[in-house]
């Protein structure tokens, strides 16, 4: 296991200490229970936005805490949903009287732990809305599965909802905008290599030199299909075709095209994928008016990528463009 770590059990703690040391201007890091909260929280009259999930997906979510995005992030152990006490404390810490939105990725553990936290927060008189993100088109039917996973659209939802909350929109509004992002966003991912969960110490799955997995999530779980390694253009085509045919996107739609690295794939390759994905979007009649390229929702050191498409409208575009100041996403300020 080749990682820059000390003891696997300490990785999240040391990472959080690193974040605390690096970004005291943006965030405060609380321990026991662990959560990262925006500096100066709670903001009176502003809807608080809390997200969270297992660690190992950085910069999501801790790197997205700050002006115009999240008010708090709750990191669990690696690939393990955080516990309700974390979300409860974070929720209390960011409640400025306008209520708190929980942005929850659709995983059994995240759902249940956030549910318990929301119940506990409501018991303490805090208004909480939860929106579940489930944009992964690789998972087909919630009758036979735990439902579609929440992946790339989460990053977009956090940015867009954060912008809405910054303008003092109501909890109901912000939650509805979050649902809108989820309704209009679709993603699919693939892996060239597995990742290694630190406490496991070896790859979660093994892929031969000439194999890849299509339809993976972000937890090193095997994908839907194992295939022979294909060129980047073919991979972009497989992902884009599944995504575009799912929504379906219509001719003339304005979209945000997000090409995401899984953690071990360098930016150079993401631009090669972007090149083809953009071309396919245009050929399909879509107008790519916004984009995001980089490793924003990762799976430890996994090599691979995911693609997310979000159908934009004026409101979403405006909110996407609004200023944001976080460790990992920043513009306009």
């Amino acid at each position: 296991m080749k990682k820059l770590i000390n003891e696997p059990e300490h990785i999240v703690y040391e990472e959080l200490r690193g974040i605390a040391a690096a970004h005291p201007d943006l965030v405060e890091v609380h321990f026991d229970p662990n959560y990262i909260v925006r500096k100066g929280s709670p903001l009176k009259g502003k809807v608080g936005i809390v997200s969270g999930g297992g660690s190992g997906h950085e910069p999501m979510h801790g790197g997205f805490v700050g002006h115009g995005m999240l008010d708090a992030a709750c990191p669990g152990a690696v690939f393990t949903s955080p516990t309700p006490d974390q979300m409860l404390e974070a929720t209390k810490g960011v409640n400025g009287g306008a209520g708190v939105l929980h942005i929850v990725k659709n995983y059994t553990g995240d759902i249940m732990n956030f549910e318990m936290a929301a119940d506990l927060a409501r018991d303490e008189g805090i208004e909480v809305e939860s929106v579940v993100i489930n944009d992964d088109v690789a998972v087909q039917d919630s009758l036979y599965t735990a439902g579609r996973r929440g992946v790339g659209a989460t990053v977009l939802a956090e940015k867009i909802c954060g912008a809405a909350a910054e303008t003092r929109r109501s909890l109901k509004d912000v939650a509805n905008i979050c649902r809108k992002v989820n309704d209009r966003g679709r993603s699919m991912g693939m892996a060239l290599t597995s990742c290694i969960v630190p406490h496991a110490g070896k790859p979660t799955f093994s892929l031969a030199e000439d194999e890849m997995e299509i339809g993976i999530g972000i937890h090193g779980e095997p994908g839907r299909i194992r295939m022979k390694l294909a060129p980047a253009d073919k991979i972009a085509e497989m992902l884009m075709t599944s995504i575009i045919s799912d929504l379906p996107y219509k001719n003339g739609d304005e979209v945000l095209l997000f090409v995401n690295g899984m953690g071990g794939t360098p930016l150079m390759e993401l631009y090669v994928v972007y090149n083809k994905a953009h071309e396919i979007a245009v050929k399909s009649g879509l107008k790519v008016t916004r984009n995001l390229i980089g490793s924003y929702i990762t799976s430890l050191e996994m090599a691979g990528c995911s693609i997310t498409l979000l159908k934009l409208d004026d409101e979403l575009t405006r909110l996407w463009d609004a200023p944001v100041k976080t460790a990992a996403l920043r513009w306009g300020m």
Partner: protein
Amino acid sequence: MRISRDDVLNWIRNCAAAVADNKEYLIQLDSDIGDGDHGANIHRGFQAVLSKLPTVADKDIGTIFKTVGFTLISTVGGASGPLYGALFMQMGTVTAGKLELTLADWAAAIEAGLNGVILRGKAILGDKTMVDALMPSAKALHEASIEGKSLPDALRTCARAAEKGMRNTIPLVAKKGRASYLGERSVGHQDPGATSSNLLLQVAVRTWTNGAS
């Protein structure tokens, strides 16, 4: 033939030890069809339980179970944290105030725990989850209690049912939890949660048929 509070405490301690021994095995099972953390998750939880236990060792069994449940909820995370939390919380509710348990009490506790798991996780039998180990176990205990079996016999029947339920998950297609994303590819693998549930019930036999019984 009762289960004393000390028996209960010993069971919990032995569970923690058994989970520690099986940590890598559970990680391996969860790597095959999940995300490879189940062993680490419940190990972390039971270690926290171990350090919490002394603070409630003189309390009633209900309080002890509830403390275990609460501790698991705030330390395990993932899917299994709330589920094992619910199991122990519900076991605590129906054993509230008790200082010892009859076979009927134990059967009722496991049944309540199972219901807690089902209420939270909404899995049914055959979804390839811990419910596949817990449900046959609860049923076996319930029947053994009605049939008037001895506690050791009942525990053994229960453990056999748990093990069988666990093995039965192998050919199943997962419908709940992370393994469900794999669809048909989940076939041929034993569910990690069913495996850890079976472990807890095997430990009960080991602990209580040498000790209390």
